[in-house]
Each structure stands twice: as C-alpha cells, then as structure tokens.
C-alpha cells in the first residue's frame, strides 16, 4: 500500500491544546494540537454517537462529551469505562503551514 499523505488543514486552524473536527475523504477525523505536536484519531466515539472534537483535551487524553470516556490521543487506547474499544489513530506530518494525514 503506497503512502497517501493528504493535506487536511492549515496548522493555525487547530488552536493550541485543543481539538477540531475535519472531514477527509468521507471520514470524520479529530485533529489535536498538544504540546506543539499534531495528532489525529477517528472523530466518532467508539461508544456512543458523539464527536470527540466536541469533547475536552486534557493531559494528552480526549474526553468524549457524551459519557466522559477518555482516549489517549497518541495511541487511541480506551482509558476508562464505559469505553470497551480503542479509537483508530492516524499518522500526521506538518509540512510548513500544512497538516498532512496518512490515510492507509
């Protein structure tokens, strides 16, 4: 499978230590800026019908607004109940002012 880096947004569109939602090739993606680095996960929570980009980013974990489940934004790992399933993560790269995402 060849690398498929896609430009998804300008770097300054993501506020520091916060999260935004974007749509990439029909997928809903949450983009995080945390301690100067950019991370990406699926935006829809693996538990309820909610967007993680409506949630709260703290200490490298995104808390879902619906039921307060928390995922590690780097690994996608489900950190607490009621989550039972990890969330998918994506590799990101910053090229100048652009954020690129690797869609496998």
């Amino acid at each position, binding site marked *: 499978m060849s690398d498929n880096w896609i430009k998804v947004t300008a770097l300054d569109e993501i*506020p520091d230590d916060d999260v935004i939602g974007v749509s990439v090739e029909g997928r809903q993606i949450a983009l995080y800026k945390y301690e100067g680095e950019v991370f990406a996960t699926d935006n829809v929570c693996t538990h*309820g019908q909610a967007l993680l980009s*409506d949630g709260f980013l703290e200490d490298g974990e995104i808390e879902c*607004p*619906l*039921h307060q*489940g928390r995922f590690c934004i780097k690994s996608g790992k489900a950190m607490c109940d*009621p989550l039972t399933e990890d969330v998918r993560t994506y590799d990101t790269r910053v090229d100048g002012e652009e954020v690129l995402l690797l869609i496998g």
Partner: protein
Amino acid sequence: MSNETHIPMRPVWDQPDTSRIPFKVYTDEQTHQKELEKLFYQNHWCYVGLEAEIPEHGDFKRTVIGERSVIMVRGADGEINVVENVCAHRGMRFCRKKHGNAKEFVCPYHQWNYDLKGNLQGVPFRRGVKQDGQVKGGMPKDFKPADHGLTQLRVAQRGGVVFATFDQEAESFEDFVGPEMLHYFDRMFNGRKLKLLGYNKQRIPGNWKLMMENIKDPYHPGLLHTWFVTFGLWRADNRSELKMDKHHRHAAMISTRGEGGKNAQTTGVSSFKEEMKLHDPRFLDVEVEPWWNGPTAVMMTLFPSVILQQQVNSVSTRHIQPNGHDSFDFVWTHFGYEDDTEEMTERRLRQANLFGPAGFVSADDGEVIEFSQEGFEQKPFHRSLAELGGREIGDTDHMVSETLIRGMYEYWRKQMED
C-alpha cells in the same frame, strides 16, 4: 355477627388475637402503601430470581420488589448485582426489556449511563458545549457522578436463589429466614446447580396477602382442589406438619403421602372417583427423589415475597408482585437441577402442568382470591374467620388448622401497628 356497618378508617381488630381478620386489611390503599414500606422495602429480604436465569456476564432480568422495578444483573466480574430501575437524573424506569444482556445501562431520555453495579459513568455534556471558543452550559463544577448512581440493593445468594433488600440495616438473610425454615430451604436448594425450565405469569385481581394465606391454609387443598383428591395426590390421612419461624411470618406445610409418592396407576391406590382416569397418566408419573428425605410436598412461604414449592417432582418459585391493594402479578419460575436426567426434566415439565394460571389445581386458587376480594370490597367493615384449630398460634402435626394465617397476622400487626 356484628351489625356494625360503618366503614372504619383503618383495620380494626375486634380482639387481641388474630383469629378474626378485618376485611379492611385487604381493601385500604393507605394500609397497602404502609405495607409496601414496612414489609417490602424495610427489614425484609425479597425474592428477585435464580442465578440460573442470568448465567453469563452482562445477563440481566427485570423484576420487582414490592412495587419497585429492579434489575438483577451479573456484572463483568461475575458477581450478581441488584439495582433500582430508576434513573438518577429524571427518575425514568429506563430498562424496558424483561431479559437481556448488556455491557452498561443507558437511560434513553438523556443517555445517562451506568455500569452494571449501578455507578454513574457518563453524563452527556456534563462539561457543556464548546461554542465560539467558549464552553457553555453543563453540570455545576461540584457535580460528583459518585453521588448519582442507581440505588444499589444488598444482595444475598443461597443455593442458587437471589434475594435483595433496600434496607442497609436489615438482619442477614439467614437470620431473616431463621433456622426452622432454612432447613427446608436448604433441602430444596442443596447446592446443586439449578436449571431454568420456564415461566408462568398471571395477574390475580385480589390483595397480595391472600396468596400468602393460600399457601398457609392447609384446609382448602382437599376441598377446593378436587382434582388433587380425585387423582389421589391429596388425602386427608397424609402425614403432615405445619411449621413456622420464631416470628411466625414464614411457614412450611409439609406432607408425606403414605405411598411414598407413587401414583395411583403404579400402586393401585384408588382415587375418589374410580371411573375417572387421566387421558395422559404421565402427569402423575411420580418418581421419589433422594433429596426429599421423606416429604412428598413442602410448600413454603417466605414472607412477604415468595412461595417455594415442591409438589412431588415439580419444583418452582412463585413470586408475588403487588400492583395496588387489589391486584398482584404472580410469576412462577419452574426449574430443575443440572444433574437431572432427560427423563426427570420431562417429568418436571409435565408435572408443571398441574400448576400455574391454567394448572389443574391452581387456576382455582386465583379465582377464589378474586372472589374473596370481591366480598371484602362489598363489606369493608366486616371480618373473616381464621379459628380452625383454635385461636392460638403454634406448629401442628396435622392439616386441620389455620394457625399459620393467625401467625402471619400476629407478625403483620407487630410490623404495622407500631
């Protein structure tokens, strides 16, 4: 007989003992509410179900204690929890399924979710919504999910049967049942795993206590249940005993057929009406089981919520679920034991036809309870008689006594009149 016809505000007992029971105990809604509080929600352990009904992690069954909806659920750790089916948020009875399997409980109204122990896990938009770089709304900062779980009941399990109580101060389940009744409880639930066979459910338009009384009344079976007599399952000369716990709230009617449980077809015991024969005699294909240790029938009342039945090879629990002073649901759970042979399971299932809402001998119990309630409602100033076998209360070695009913009302008065 009293000519007094004014209707008292509450039950009036016209003598110190309980051999005459005021109709008002069955017809008064205020009394009913007080009973729910004092007999179902405080001080008492109530039946919720069998462990065999929820074998897998996450399996649940919705049932009731008194008139409160509760859920019996096997948690992720395999432990059995009982929680109240009322959302901590807006009070909804959120669980609508009778049986199921769940990873969590979610109230559909606002999606508050709880783990299987009843702890609140998530509150949608607890921290508000993000709008234009600001966070708006949400729960107050001092909101603590730990303070807003479902009501978690105390649970007791013995021999595969699950009981629960809302009362954190109630005595232990074993003390509640008492050694006299525990003996018969353990006889039927002796550690063998139970096997669920099925349910019967009926709504009986009468006061719930009448069902307790029905199983504390050995006077009626040979008279009302002519089917029993006709086919030789009940004989006046059966050896029998009536026993109670020290509070006289629980009781057991224990009887042993002289023939050791063998049916008329195999032993030649003549039925009352020789010419009447069952089309399918297998209903009475009784096989003596070692665990009986003699008695062929033991009918136990564990006050206030359940009847435990052994009638020859038919074993079941019968759960009393009141709904108002003049109606209750009666839920029969027929079971067997995991080490039963296929033939024994068949036999238990066939004999289960004797009981339940369409049973040969208990459809009539539902009817007489309905007709009793009709009599009470018509004449609420009056009282019934329970003087058979004397006016005192005590264990007996015969069946011609209403002592167990008097005992129950002695206990009832102590609970209700303080």
